[in-house]
């Protein structure tokens, strides 16, 4: 049995989930995604755990998808000469992909995430699906999807930061520091690195002083407001746009989606290098 990529622990009223691939920047591969799923299911059934805390070991919270070990269910089909999957298969797959994040977003407990270092791409989606985000003031947030020829994976952006900021960040692929992220509403609190764990834990313990049932209702009540403003439909609509993009990736203009072309021909390090090069002058 391989070492788990995600650790689960209950401490008093809190369920703690820790991403544990520090050497890989906690990048999402199959093992991490699978272990994250089962840790969440476990936390959901532990009625004594009133609040869920998500955190990560190592210098970075999560750098996104693991380019060298892509989680197969987490990515649209890269361009290739494989036969075109039927539309119902694509829908099935996309729905599965989206559902994990929508599940976490609606997890029936308050969720608190504690972020240090880089929090990028799918890692940022993970953090955004939690209710309260604490970050160390040296943390950076960003989504390089567009530069990779992909689409950002969650519809929460406009609800959190408004459409102008969302476009600014997603079009340019720039990273946002913790203080700016807190100022625009992408996260809740930026705190000094050495106080991150203490602050997040104190906050979680404070929230857990309230009755667990009341907390579950309060969260549902607030999430329902976004549901009524269309976030549920937006999750599903995003799956369709992702499919359209999958199809589009098969007929790229020559300069597009270099990331996957390079990944296929020259491997993950070269692809990451090119991506970093493309984004280094982001405003």
């Amino acid at each position, binding site marked *: 049995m391989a070492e788990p990529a995600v650790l689960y622990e*209950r401490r008093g009223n809190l369920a703690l989930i820790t991403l544990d691939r520090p050497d890989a920047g906690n990048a999402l591969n199959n093992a991490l995604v699978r272990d994250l*799923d089962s840790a*969440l*299911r*476990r936390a*959901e*059934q*532990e*009625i*004594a755990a009133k609040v869920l805390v998500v955190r990560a070991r190592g210098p970075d919270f999560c750098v996104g998808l693991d380019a060298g070990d892509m989680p197969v269910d987490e990515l649209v089909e890269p361009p290739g000469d494989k036969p075109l999957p*039927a*539309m*119902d*298969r694509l*829908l*099935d797959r996309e*729905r*599965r992909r989206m*559902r*994990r994040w929508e*599940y976490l977003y*609606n997890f*029936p*407990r308050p969720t608190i995430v504690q972020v240090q270092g880089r929090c990028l791409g799918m890692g940022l989606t993970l953090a955004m699906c939690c209710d309260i985000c604490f970050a160390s003031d040296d943390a950076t947030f960003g989504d390089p999807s567009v530069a990779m020829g992909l689409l950002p994976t969650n519809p929460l952006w406009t609800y959190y930061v408004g459409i102008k900021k969302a476009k600014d960040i997603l079009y340019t692929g720039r990273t946002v520091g913790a203080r700016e992220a807190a100022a625009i509403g992408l996260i809740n609190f930026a705190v000094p690195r050495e106080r991150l764990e203490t602050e997040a834990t104190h906050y979680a313990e404070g929230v857990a002083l309230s009755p*667990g*049932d009341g907390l*579950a*209702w309060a969260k*549902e009540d607030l999430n*329902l407001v976004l*549901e*009524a403003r*269309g976030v*549920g*439909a937006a999750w*599903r*609509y995003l799956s*369709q746009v992702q499919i359209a993009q999958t199809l589009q990736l098969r007929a790229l203009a020559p300069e597009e989606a270099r990331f996957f072309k390079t990944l296929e021909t020259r491997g993950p390090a070269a692809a990451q290098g090119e991506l970093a090069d493309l984004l280094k002058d982001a405003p």
Partner: protein
Amino acid sequence: MMPGLFGEYKFQYQVPQYQWVSYQDRAFDTTLYEKDGPIARLTFNRPEKRNAFNDRQFLDLLAGLHRAADDSEVRVVIIRGRGSAFSAGHDLSSPEGDETIPIDPKYAPNVRDYFNVERRRCGKHEDILHYPKVTIAQVHGYCIGAGEGVQASCDFTIAAEDAIFGVRGFGRLTLGLSYWNGSWPGASHRARTASTIPEMSGKDAAERGLITRAVPKERLEEETERFARHVARMPPNTLALLKESVNGALDVAGLGVAWRAHYEGHISYQYVRFRPWELNFYRTRRDKGLKGFIDTRHQTTTTETAPESGR
């Protein structure tokens, strides 16, 4: 680890539920799976229970949907029932610990237990609605409660004229939370009328626009097959996208909120204080047994029982 209410959940929420249930080593005995060219038929096979749902039957249904989704030849799925009925609802005599029937108060569930379980119960129907291939419910006899929920989640319902649709709601415990209200906003005023009527025939349901069509019982099989064959000849990619866009319109019109209001309705019902003349399923079952409950329900639903001065 503290065990959950039922230990490990049998139904899932993290992925569409039919995707969660494996079909490879499944016997498909409580729901039969047959393939006939582009048509897959899922047939509830518990006629002695009028195909009322316990967990096993629902899991077989979901596994069948999974199998049909994975089979690229299958273009349309027909869901139907063997014996005298399509489905009579929840099987109130389900084995201990089953999740599809409402949680027994003896477990002392709290609100979080309810969230965990209710969204799985309701999510099953939601996932059938958003299933990526065309689904047709072929309905005869009773189509009540959970069975009504399944047919309402299918794209088409073709029913025998004398089929009986309705919501019994455990003796009115959940009456009024019909899926019809949320599923077809265009017909909502008709649905509202309909949901105050405990039962209606297939013919009435078709006239109210709540189902696709009603046909004489002896032609039900043949008409459903004709319908399915026609759908199977349509371009499948276009159909898949059409279904997404139609469901998307329902979503934007508020279906997502309606589903959640529905399962929250279930949660709130645990706090219902019954008036002396009202029928309490759990108490009656405890005192008089299941058969005793059914007899009592029959008496209370066939007479107007609320007295003028009940308070």
